[in-house]
């Protein structure tokens, strides 16, 4: 069974704070993705990666950095968090086909 886990599941920070969201997949997939979902909307792609050390820009990358340290681990970094980044964040993995999603991280920036 495909497995994508995220941590933390909930996070509250203040404006200007530094936040790292973590994602781990045990599917041996090459592709990993970070999405954000704002209330009442679909998911939007922030960054994605083809493999360890690779990083690609998605549709809404401003204010975010990402790093893929291993095939399993993909991190999303918010170095100066702003209230506009309050959102539900999803990680996913795939191998040129179906994407498997994690449970999400709810981030609130006060």
């Amino acid at each position: 069974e495909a497995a994508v886990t995220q941590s933390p599941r909930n996070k509250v920070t203040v404006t200007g704070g530094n936040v790292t969201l973590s994602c781990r997949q045990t599917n041996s997939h090459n592709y990993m993705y970070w999405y954000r979902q704002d209330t009442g909307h679909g998911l939007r792609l922030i960054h994605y990666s083809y493999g360890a050390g690779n990083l690609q820009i998605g549709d809404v990358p401003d204010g975010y950095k990402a790093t893929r340290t291993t095939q399993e681990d993909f991190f999303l970094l918010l170095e100066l968090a702003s209230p506009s980044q309050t959102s539900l964040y999803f990680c996913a993995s795939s191998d040129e086909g179906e994407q498997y999603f994690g449970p999400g991280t709810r981030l609130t920036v006060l």
Partner: protein
Amino acid sequence: GDQVEQSPSALSLHEGTDSALRCNFTTTMRSVQWFRQNSRGSLISLFYLASGTKENGRLKSAFDSKERRYSTLHIRDAQLEDSGTYFCAAETQVVGQLTFGSGTRLQVYA
């Protein structure tokens, strides 16, 4: 511009009735995935289609194999537990990039 147009945006169904959701794409897509999101935010994958149709219990999905410009999700004999927000997401010609629709909020009532 928007590449995935999902309809209807909201739907209310009486238990036991049938309905269909639709996603139109402004360009040819490689594949489509359908999801249901519950009130807690969890994203459940329903179908992944690169072509043709798939069926799972009371749910059936189809992806236009000829022009690859639309997909449908049929719900048969709607039950209370089918309530939630349904999203389609289509993979563009860039491998791995999913574009989500805005969702259909479905409420099934007794």
